[in-house]
C-alpha cells in the first residue's frame, strides 16, 4: 500500500540511488538483495518487560525499506488525523471523532509483524488501523463525512470502519465489547485451522471491563490464538489510569496469561512484540501486550484534552517520544535519506490527504433508499417503516 506510493512519487528519488552508510550493521548484504533489503540492527531504547514469559530481544532487525515505510505510513496517518480535526471543526464530520495521532507506531509496527490473513479488531479509535489494513484515504474521509464512497457507505461513521477481506473487523463503539469478539475471531481461526492470529486492541479504560476477563478465561482454557493489546495512552477519556485501575500494570492483569510491556511509541519495538506474540499465540494460546503510548488529542473532538493533563505533559511527550520523529532520527542517523527527502515525503502525504478530502467532498450522501438496506442479509420481503409508516415504507429484500 504505502510503499508503492513511495517509490512512484515523482518528488522522491528512487531508493537504490541513495548512498547507504550503516553505522551499526556488522552484516554486509548479499549480492542477491537490493540496498532496500539491507539488514540494519537497531536496539530499542527501552527493553521489554515480561510477565510469565521471557521477553524477546531488544535488538531488532529491520531494513531501509521498512524504516522508510514506517515513516511514510505514520506521516500519512498523522496527516489524516490532523485533517479530520479540521473537518470536524468545519462541521463536515459529525457526532464522534476519536483521533489516533501519537499512537501511530502501534498501527504500523503491528502491520509489519503480521499478514492480512491475521485479524485485527479494535474499538472506536480506528481510522489509522483501518489505513494500516489497506483502507484508502478516500474511503476513510468519505465515511467520516457520511458519503457514499465511505467504507461503510456512509452508514457507519467514524467508529464503524471495517475491511473484512484484509482481516479488519471494526470499529466498535461499546467499550470492551471488541475483546470477546476478537477472542471469537481467534476461535474461528483455530477452528478453521488457518494458523493465523487475532489482535484485539483495547485501551486502558477498557482494561477493567469484566467481559475482558471472561473472554480471556475462555481463550486460555481453549488455547485460542488471541493477542490482547492494551493501547495504554494513560487516560480513559478524562480519567487517568491511576484513578481507574487499582493495578495499572495492564500486561500483568491477565494473571495466568503471559504479558509483555512494550514501548508503544517505538514502531520497531511494537513490531518485535507482535511477532513474538503471534508465535506465542499459535503455540500456547493467549498473551497480553501492553503498548505504552500516548494520544495528543483529547479522548474525542468534544474533549480539549487539557483539563485532566497539562500542556507541558503533552508537549513533553511530543518532544521526547514522538513515533515519527524517532523513525526520522533513525533514518537520518543511518543515512537512508536526507532531511529534505523526508520533508518531501511529508509534503507528498499532505497532498494525497488534501486530494482525498477533495474527492470525498464530491461523493454524494447515500440515496434515501439506503436507509432500509443491509438491515438483514435476507429480508424475506418483509416490510420496514420510516418515522411515519403511512408515508415511508420499504420492502426488505
Amino acid at each position, binding site marked *: 500500500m504505502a510503499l508503492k506510493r513511495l517509490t512512484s512519487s515523482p518528488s522522491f528519488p528512487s531508493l537504490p540511488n541513495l548512498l547507504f552508510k550503516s553505522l551499526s550493521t556488522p552484516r554486509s548484504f548479499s549480492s542477491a538483495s537490493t540496498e532496500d533489503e539491507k539488514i540494519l540492527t537497531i536496539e530499542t531504547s527501552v527493553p521489554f518487560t515480561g510477565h510469565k514469559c521471557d521477553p524477546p530481544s531488544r535488538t531488532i532487525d529491520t531494513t531501509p525499506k521498512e524504516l522508510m515505510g514506517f515513516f511514510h505510513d505514520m506521516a500519512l496517518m498523522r496527516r489524516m488525523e490532523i485533517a479530520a480535526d479540521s473537518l470536524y471543526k468545519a462541521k463536515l464530520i459529525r457526532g464522534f471523532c476519536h483521533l489516533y495521532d501519537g499512537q501511530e507506531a502501534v498501527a504500523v509496527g503491528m502491520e509489519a509483524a503480521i499478514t492480512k490473513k491475521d485479524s485485527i479488531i479494535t474499538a472506536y479509535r480506528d481510522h489509522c488501523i483501518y489505513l494500516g489494513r489497506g483502507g484508502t484515504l478516500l474511503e476513510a474521509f468519505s465515511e467520516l463525512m457520511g458519503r457514499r464512497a465511505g467504507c461503510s457507505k*456512509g452508514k457507519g461513521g467514524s467508529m464503524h470502519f471495517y475491511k473484512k477481506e484484509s482481516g479488519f473487523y471494526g470499529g466498535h463503539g461499546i467499550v470492551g465489547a471488541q475483546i*470477546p469478539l476478537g477472542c471469537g475471531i481467534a476461535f474461528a481461526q483455530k477452528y478453521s485451522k488457518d494458523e493465523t492470529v487475532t489482535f484485539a486492541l483495547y485501551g486502558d479504560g477498557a482494561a477493567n471491563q469484566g467481559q475482558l476477563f471472561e473472554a480471556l478465561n475462555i481463550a486460555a482454557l481453549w488455547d485460542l490464538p488471541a493477542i490482547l493489546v492494551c493501547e495504554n495512552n494513560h487516560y480513559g477519556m478524562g480519567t487517568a489510569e491511576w484513578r481507574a485501575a487499582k493495578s495499572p500494570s495492564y500486561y500483568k492483569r491477565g494473571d495466568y496469561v503471559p504479558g509483555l510491556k512494550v514501548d508503544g511509541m517505538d514502531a520497531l519495538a511494537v513490531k518485535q512484540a507482535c511477532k513474538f506474540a503471534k508465535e506465542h499465540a499459535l503455540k500456547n494460546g493467549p498473551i497480553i501486550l501492553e503498548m505504552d503510548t500516548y494520544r495528543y488529542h483529547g479522548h474525542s473532538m468534544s474533549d480539549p484534552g487539557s483539563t485532566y493533563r497539562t500542556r507541558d505533559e503533552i508537549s513533553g511527550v511530543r518532544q521526547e517520544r514522538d513515533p515519527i520523529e524517532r523513525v526520522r532520527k533513525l533514518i537520518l542517523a543511518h543515512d537512508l535519506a536526507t532531511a529534505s527527502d523526508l520533508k518531501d515525503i511529508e509534503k507528498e502525504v499532505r497532498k494525497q490527504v488534501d486530494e482525498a478530502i477533495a474527492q470525498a467532498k464530491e461523493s454524494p450522501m447515500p440515496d434515501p433508499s439506503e436507509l432500509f438496506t443491509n438491515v438483514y442479509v435476507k429480508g424475506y420481503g418483509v416490510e420496514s417503516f420510516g418515522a411515519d409508516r403511512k408515508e415511508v415504507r420499504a420492502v426488505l429484500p
Partner: protein
Amino acid sequence: MWGIIRQKVGSRCFSASILGQSLERIEQPLTVLARNFSSGGKDMNVRDALNSALDEEMSADPKVLLMGEEVGEYQGAYKISKGLLEKYGPERVLDTPITEAGFAGIGVGAAYYGLRPVVEFMTFNFSMQAIDHIINSAAKSNYMSAGQINVPIVFRGPNGAAAGVGAQHSQCYAAWFASCPGLKVLSPYSSEDARGLLKAAIRDPDPVVFLENELLYGESFPVSAEALDSSFCLPIGKAKIEREGKHVTITAFSKMVGYALQAAEILAKEGISAEVINLRSIRPLDRDTINASVRKTNRLVTLEEGFPQHGVGAEICTSVIEESFEYLDAPVERIAGADVPMPYAANLERMAVPQVDDIVRAAKRACYRAVPVAAVA
C-alpha cells in the same frame, strides 16, 4: 437442582395426554388445515425435535457448532443437546464457563469470521448479561458495515415462565428482542415448529433469537414424514393458522398457542368459532396473516405470557388498527402476564400467567360487544 424442578414440572403442567386429546379433537373436523401430516404420522416431543434439528444441521454443515453451559458432558441442562458431544466431539460442542457476556461475544466474533455458532443460554433470563453482544455486536453489524460483516448466529434457549422458579427466572424476552431491527426472533410451539424453525434459524445468514419453552420440551406432537426429513425447513416470517375460525382471532406464540387451542375448544361449545394463529415468528411479524384473519373475523384477542406493557400484543393491536381499523367490530383485547414480577406462591403464580379462562373471557368480551357503549352524561 434442575432435575428436581423438571420432575415437578412434569406433574404440574398439562401432561401430554390432555394436549394430545385436544389436538385429536381438532384434527377430525378441520381437513383444510395447512398442516400436512400422514395418517400414520409418528409423535415426537419438542426436546427430540430440537435435538434432531441440531444434529442434522451440524451434520450437514461443518461450520455449525454449539456452545453454552452444560451443553456437552452434561448432555444439556434440559437434555436438548443429548448425544451431540459424543457424535461431534469437543471442538464442535463446547461447554462454557458461566460467563454469558464472554461466550456470547466469542460466539458473535466466530460468526463474524464465518462460522455458524449456536449459542445456548440456559434460560433467556441470563441473556441480559450478554444483551449488548446480541444487539450491538450482532444485530447491528450488517447495517453498520453496509453488508460487509453479516452474523449467522443463533441464540437459543428456554424463555418465559417455567413453574415455581420465581421472578428472576421467569421473564419473557420476546418483546424486547423483537423490537430490534437486525434481529430475527422465532418462537416455536409444536415439534414441527421446533424442527422447522430451528433448522431455518441455523441456515439463516442473520442473527436469530430462538425462544423455546421449558414446559413444552416434554410435550409430544404428531410430526409428518415431511417434517422428519433432514431438508425440512419452515419459512421465517410466516405465521400458521393452527385452527380456523370465523368469529374471533386469537394470536399467540409458544406455550400460549396450546392454551389458545384449549380456549377455542371451550368457545366452540358456546357457539364462538375462534381462529388461532400461531405466530411462529415474532420478528418479522406476519402482519399479512394477522390482518387477513381479523378482516375475516372482525375481532382480535392477543395472547402472550410476557409483561403487558410494550409487549407483542401491543404491536399486533397497533398493526391491526393501522391496517384494518374499519374491519374491527370490537376493541382489541389483550391477555398477557400480570404486570408484576413473577411470584413464587402457587396461587399467585397462577394469577401472574394467563389461564385458559382468561382467554375465553376475553374472546367472549370481544364477541358480545354488540351494544355500543353509551356516552356518560
